C-alpha cells in the first residue's frame, strides 16, 4: 500500500484548494444522502420515544428511587465529553503552531458545537417536565427566588452555556475568511447567507491583524474553559458522598475521558468526510496517523486514571466503595464493565500499529468501538453506584427501558443530522488555513533545499523547475 508521508502536498495550487472545498458543498458522494437518511430514521425513533414519555410520564423510563439517574445522564456526560476534543485540541494545536490541525479543525470544532447542543437536550428530557427547564437559569423574579448557586448542577448550566457560546463563536470567527470566499462564489440563497455571515470581510491587513489576535486570544481562553467544563460535570458526582463517585481523581479522569471520546469521534468523522467529499488530498493518511497516535496516548492516560481509581478504592479500604468495585467486576453489570475496559483499554493498542492506523475501514470500526467504550464508561459511572449504595434498602438492579434506549439511540441521529447539514452548507476544510499550511510547507522545503547548499532549482513532483527558497509565493504558480 502506498502511503503519502506528507501531511499535505505542498504543490497544491491555492485556486485548487478553493475549488475542491467549494465543490464539496455542492456534490457529495451518494453515501452522504444515505447517511442523512440514516440519521433521520434514528432521530425519528427518539422523537417517538420522547412523545410517548411526554404523554405517559417518566415511569416509562424505569427511572425510580434509587435509580434517579441512568442513561440520560450518562449520555449527557458522553456528549459533553465528545465536545471536548474539537475546540480544546484545535485551540491547543493552534497555540503550539501544529499546522497539521488546519485541514481538520473546522469539522472538529463543529463537532464540539453540535455535541453540546445534543448534550443540552438530555437534562431537559431527564427532567420530565421540560417546560420547567428555565428554572435553572438565574433570572429576576418578583418572588426573589434564585437557583441554588452552591449546586454543581447550576454550575453545569453556567459552564455549558459559556462553553457552547464560546465554542460556537470560535467556530464562527475562524470561518469568516472562508465565508467570504463562499460569498464571492455563491448564487441565490447561499449568496445572501454568506454575505451576511462574512460580515464584509475584505482580507485587508487591518482585518487579518485583528483577526489573528482575536483567534489566538479566544484559543487561550477556550483551553481552561474546556477543562473547567468537564471538571464541573465531574463535580456533579465527585461532590456527592456516594460510593464510587466521591473520588478525588474524577475531574482529570473526566477530562481524559472527554478528550479520548472526542479524539475517537474525530477519527470517525475524518474518515466519513474524507469519503463523502473526496477530501483525500487534504485529510491525508499522515494526518490520520497523528490523530491516531494522539488518541493512543490519551487512551493510555485514561487507562492509568482508571487503574489509580481502582487502587485508591482498594487500598483506601472504605468497605462500601470496595464492595461496589468488586460488584462492578463480578456483579450484574460486570459484562458491560468488562466490555468498557476491553473497548477503552485493549482495543486502542491497535492504534499502536501503523498497518492499522493507515487502513481507513479498520480505523472507522476501531473509532466506533472506542466511542462505545467511552459511552459504557459513563453508564458504568452512573448506574452501578446507584444500585449499591450505603443502605441495603437502596440496593436495586435496574435496566433501562426501551424508551430510554430509543432516545439515546436517536441522539446520535440528531447529532449526525446537525453535523451533516453543517458540512453541506459550510466549508468543512478551512481553505485559508490550508493555503497557509501549503505556503509554509513550501517555504520550509525551499529553505531546507537552500541550506543543503544546492544552487540548483528545486524540482517539484512533476519534474518542473520550481522557484528556489524565498522567491515567489508558494502555491501561486497556477495563478
Amino acid at each position: 500500500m502506498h502511503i503519502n508521508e506528507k501531511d499535505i502536498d505542498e504543490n497544491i495550487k491555492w485556486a485548487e484548494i478553493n475549488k475542491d472545498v467549494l465543490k464539496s458543498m455542492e456534490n457529495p458522494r451518494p453515501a452522504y444522502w444515505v447517511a442523512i437518511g440514516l440519521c433521520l430514521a434514528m432521530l425519528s425513533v427518539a422523537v417517538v420515544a420522547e412523545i410517548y414519555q411526554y404523554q405517559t410520564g417518566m415511569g416509562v423510563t424505569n427511572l425510580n428511587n434509587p435509580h434517579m439517574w441512568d442513561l440520560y445522564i450518562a449520555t449527557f456526560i458522553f456528549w459533553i465529553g465528545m465536545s471536548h476534543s474539537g475546540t480544546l485540541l484545535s485551540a491547543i494545536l493552534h497555540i503550539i503552531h501544529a499546522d497539521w490541525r488546519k485541514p481538520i479543525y473546522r469539522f472538529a470544532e463543529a463537532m464540539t458545537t453540535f455535541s453540546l447542543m445534543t448534550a443540552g437536550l438530555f437534562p431537559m428530557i431527564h427532567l420530565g417536565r421540560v417546560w420547567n427547564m428555565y428554572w435553572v437559569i438565574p433570572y429576576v423574579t418578583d418572588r426573589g427566588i434564585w437557583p441554588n448557586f452552591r449546586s454543581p448542577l447550576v454550575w453545569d448550566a453556567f459552564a455549558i452555556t459559556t462553553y457552547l457560546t464560546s465554542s460556537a463563536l470560535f467556530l464562527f470567527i475562524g470561518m469568516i475568511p472562508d465565508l467570504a470566499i463562499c460569498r464571492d462564489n455563491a448564487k441565490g440563497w447561499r449568496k445572501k447567507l454568506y454575505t451576511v455571515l462574512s460580515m464584509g470581510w475584505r482580507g485587508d491587513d487591518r482585518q487579518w491583524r485583528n483577526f489573528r489576535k482575536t483567534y489566538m486570544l479566544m484559543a487561550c481562553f477556550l483551553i481552561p474553559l474546556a477543562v473547567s467544563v468537564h471538571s464541573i460535570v465531574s463535580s456533579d458526582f465527585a461532590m456527592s458522598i456516594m460510593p464510587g463517585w466521591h473520588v478525588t481523581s474524577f475531574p482529570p479522569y473526566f477530562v481524559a475521558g472527554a478528550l479520548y471520546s472526542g479524539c475517537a469521534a474525530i477519527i470517525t468523522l475524518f474518515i466519513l468526510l474524507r469519503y463523502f467529499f473526496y477530501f483525500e488530498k487534504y485529510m491525508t493518511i499522515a494526518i490520520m496517523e497523528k490523530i491516531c497516535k494522539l488518541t493512543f496516548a490519551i487512551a493510555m492516560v485514561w487507562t492509568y486514571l482508571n487503574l489509580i481509581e481502582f487502587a485508591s478504592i482498594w487500598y483506601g479500604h472504605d468497605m462500601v466503595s470496595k464492595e461496589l468495585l468488586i460488584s462492578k467486576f463480578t456483579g450484574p453489570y460486570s459484562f458491560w464493565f468488562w466490555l468498557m475496559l476491553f473497548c477503552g483499554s485493549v482495543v486502542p493498542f491497535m492504534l499502536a500499529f501503523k498497518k492499522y492506523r493507515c487502513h481507513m475501514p479498520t480505523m472507522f470500526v476501531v473509532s466506533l468501538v472506542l466511542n462505545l467504550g467511552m459511552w459504557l464508561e459513563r453508564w458504568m459511572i452512573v448506574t452501578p453506584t446507584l444500585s449499591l449504595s450505603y443502605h441495603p434498602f437502596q440496593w436495586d438492579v435496574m435496566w433501562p427501558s426501551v424508551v430510554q434506549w430509543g432516545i439515546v439511540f436517536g441522539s446520535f441521529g440528531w447529532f449526525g443530522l446537525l453535523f451533516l447539514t453543517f458540512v453541506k452548507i459550510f466549508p468543512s476544510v478551512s481553505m485559508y488555513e490550508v493555503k497557509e499550511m501549503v505556503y509554509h510547507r513550501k517555504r520550509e522545503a525551499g529553505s531546507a533545499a537552500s541550506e543543503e547548499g544546492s544552487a540548483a532549482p528545486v524540482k517539484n513532483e512533476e519534474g518542473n523547475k520550481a522557484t528556489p527558497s524565498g522567491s515567489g509565493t508558494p502555491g501561486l504558480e497556477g495563478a
Partner: protein
Amino acid sequence: MSKCRIMGLFSDFEEAFCAISDIKEGKLSGVSIDDVTLKSPIEHPEIEEVLGERSAPVPYFTLAGAIFGITFGFTFLSSAQANFLVQPQGGKPVVPLPSNIVLTYEMMILFAVLFTVTSLMVCGRFMTKRSSLYSEKVCIDQIGVIVEMDEADLESTKELFKKHKVLEIREEVKQ
C-alpha cells in the same frame, strides 16, 4: 488636490512586497507607507516587517471583558444570594466564596470572549460597505496593494506597479 485610490493585483507576495518597499523608500513622492493597505488570501507571517507595526487593540478589549466578567459575575451572584431570603442558610455563609469563584471564573471567560469578538468587529471595521476596489481574486490567490494618493501621483504609482509585474490595476470608482 483631490485624493484617489488604486489597487494593484500581484501574483505573489514577493512582487507586492517589492512594490511596497519602493514606496517605503520614498520612491513615490507624497505617498507614505501609512497610505498602503495590503489585501491577501492569507496573512503573511512577515507582514509587519513590510508594513511596519500597526495597532490591533483587541487584547485591551479582552482584558476589559475579563475584568467586567469577574466584577459582574461576582456582584450578580452575591447580590442574588443576599436577596434570596426564602432559603434558610442553616449556618452557612450567605455569600459562599468557593462556589462563587467557580461561577465567577465562567463569567470571566464568557465576557472576555464576547468583548474580544466585539472588538474584532469594531477594530477590523467589519460590517462596512466594501469599496469598489475589492477583488474576488484576493480571496483566491492574488495579492492586492491599495495606495491612497493625490491624483497627481496616480501615473507614477501605476508605473511603479508595472515595474513589479502587476497583473491588473483598478482605480476606485467615485460614487
